[in-house]
């Protein structure tokens, strides 16, 4: 048996943990750059606020209903997520972290599955303050559907819930009822595009999909969807992947808070992303051979332009200085004046571990003033210092934008490329200056 743990309204629950005033009120959390709604409290759902709605479209609705709006605060969400996943890993052997707020885990060899899951959910709520739901089923696809049922308890009141946040649908007729009331678009791995094809073929809900001829599905849409059909029947196809596959590439890119026109501002954004990407790569102890830089205008702009360029090194590197040198050169090559840009980014790929590096006989042209020998050592030293004194204490000298790493919200024009996050809460768990203030007196 497989269980899926899913945090309820995760980002909103995190905001509420440190700001109990938000409990019981409609709350929404916005995506990067304060663009769209990405997390809603139950109260906000009841008002009719939809997932993914753009902020500017529903501003009036939010004000009229006194909805509390928060910018996303990933340092808090990441920290709380780690705590939850650690509790899960300490209690169960086979765990696959699926996203920031979801994890699959195996319940094989357990006698009282439901009880163990209830205990786990209670422990997570007490220790971290985050409410979670756990769906138990034969396959990942069915566990996903079960979790959906827990969240829509009021519609499925005829099912017998033993607890409010853990469910295994045992009776055949109950499962059939659930599948018949699940739109095929809401089945894990189906999505909008596939659902159009399926609905054209009269496959409207999960039950229809389960009854499909699997070889027809395979012929038309491939093996992935065939697996979904089988999993709906209770045939295990997707195993729990508790060993993370090696990373294939690392991409760091963000839309700007305000559109940028000039090369210098693009460059000062890119250098921050390159340093982030290189430090992520070092955390996995990888060396990269290929560096790609991309650049684009907003798709709503009248003058459209996008371009990317890739450089492949002769020998894999871990050295930030070399990676930046290449990135800087690539940006110069693809940058064109007279466009208004909304995004720039870097992709590092073609990774290998230190042991499997093939030494080249000729020296890289770009590499000749960067001493190769000390690269690894210097990078290690940078990480040690930044770990102790805070990220960004040591950085490339070309990165002259001193404001980026300060935690203060800044409205300065010069750093306008930074993300918009007007309603961000403090970094409660990752910055000493931001830890929650508590009173000793209430008056």
């Amino acid at each position: 048996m497989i269980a899926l743990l899913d945090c309820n309204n995760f980002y909103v629950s995190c905001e509420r943990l440190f700001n109990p005033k938000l409990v019981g009120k409609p709350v929404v959390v916005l995506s990067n750059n304060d663009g769209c709604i990405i997390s809603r409290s139950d109260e906000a759902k009841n008002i009719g606020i939809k997932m993914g709605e753009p902020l500017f479209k529903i501003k009036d609705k939010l004000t009229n209903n006194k909805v509390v709006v928060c910018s996303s605060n990933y340092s808090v969400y990441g920290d709380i997520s780690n705590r939850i996943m650690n509790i899960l890993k300490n209690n169960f052997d086979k765990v696959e972290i699926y996203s920031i707020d979801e994890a699959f885990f195996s319940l094989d060899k357990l006698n009282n599955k439901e009880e163990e899951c209830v205990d786990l959910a209670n422990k997570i709520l007490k220790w971290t303050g985050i409410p979670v739901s756990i769906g138990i089923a034969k396959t990942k696809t069915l566990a996903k559907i079960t979790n959906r049922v827990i969240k829509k308890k009021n519609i499925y009141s005829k099912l017998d819930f033993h607890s409010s946040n853990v469910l295994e649908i045992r009776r055949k007729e109950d499962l059939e009822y659930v599948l018949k009331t699940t739109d095929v678009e809401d089945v894990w791995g189906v999505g909008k595009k596939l659902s159009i094809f399926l609905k054209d073929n009269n496959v409207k809900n999960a039950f229809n999909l389960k009854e499909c001829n699997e070889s027809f599905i395979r012929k038309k849409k491939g093996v992935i969807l065939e697996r979904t059909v089988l999993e709906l029947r209770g045939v295990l196809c997707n195993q729990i992947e508790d060993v993370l596959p090696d990373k294939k590439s690392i991409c760091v890119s963000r839309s700007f808070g305000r559109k940028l026109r000039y090369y210098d501002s693009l460059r000062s954004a890119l250098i921050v992303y390159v340093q982030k990407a290189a430090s992520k790569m070092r955390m996995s102890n990888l060396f990269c051979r290929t560096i790609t830089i991309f650049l684009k205008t907003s798709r709503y702009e009248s003058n459209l332009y996008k371009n990317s360029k890739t450089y492949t090194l002769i020998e894999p590197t871990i050295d930030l200085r070399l990676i930046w040198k290449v990135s800087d050169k690539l940006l110069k090559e693809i940058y064109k004046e007279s466009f208004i840009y909304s995004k720039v980014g870097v992709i590092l790929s073609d990774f290998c571990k230190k042991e499997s590096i093939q030494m080249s006989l000729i020296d890289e042209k770009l590499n000749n003033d960067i001493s190769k020998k000390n690269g690894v050592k210097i990078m290690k030293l940078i990480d040690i210092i930044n770990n102790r004194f805070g990220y960004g204490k040591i950085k490339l000298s070309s990165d002259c934008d001193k404001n980026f790493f300060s935690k203060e919200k800044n409205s300065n024009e010069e750093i306008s490329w930074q993300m918009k996050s007007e309603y961000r809460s403090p970094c409660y768990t990752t910055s000493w200056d931001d830890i929650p203030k508590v009173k000793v007196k209430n008056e």
Partner: protein
Amino acid sequence: MKKIKLVSAAAGFPSPAENYVEEQLDLNKYLIKNKESSFFVRVSGDSMINVGIFDNDILIVDRSLTPVRQSIILASIDGELVIKKIIKDKLKNYYLKSENNNYPNIKLNSNTDTMIWGVVTYVLHSLK
């Protein structure tokens, strides 16, 4: 420029202490018994001086612990995070003691707007 050594290589005689080297004391391990459920908060106000909590001190709060009589706890009262002490009366009712005489003690379980957030385990107080 001076070179910074990352790994110190042994030269000359090996240290006689080598076989006795143990891990250095780690304050994190001492102060935090449960990493997943522990949080830091900063105190504002000085009406808990009598229990050793001063203005601007940092407290370690463990959510996994169950409070008992005399526990110092962090509670959420009407949406605000407040430090309180738990007391018990003769009828064995538990209260959150108010440090302000103008306010009554808050009976536990009587008010849904009062919730225990966690138990305070240590006070970090600077003498500077």
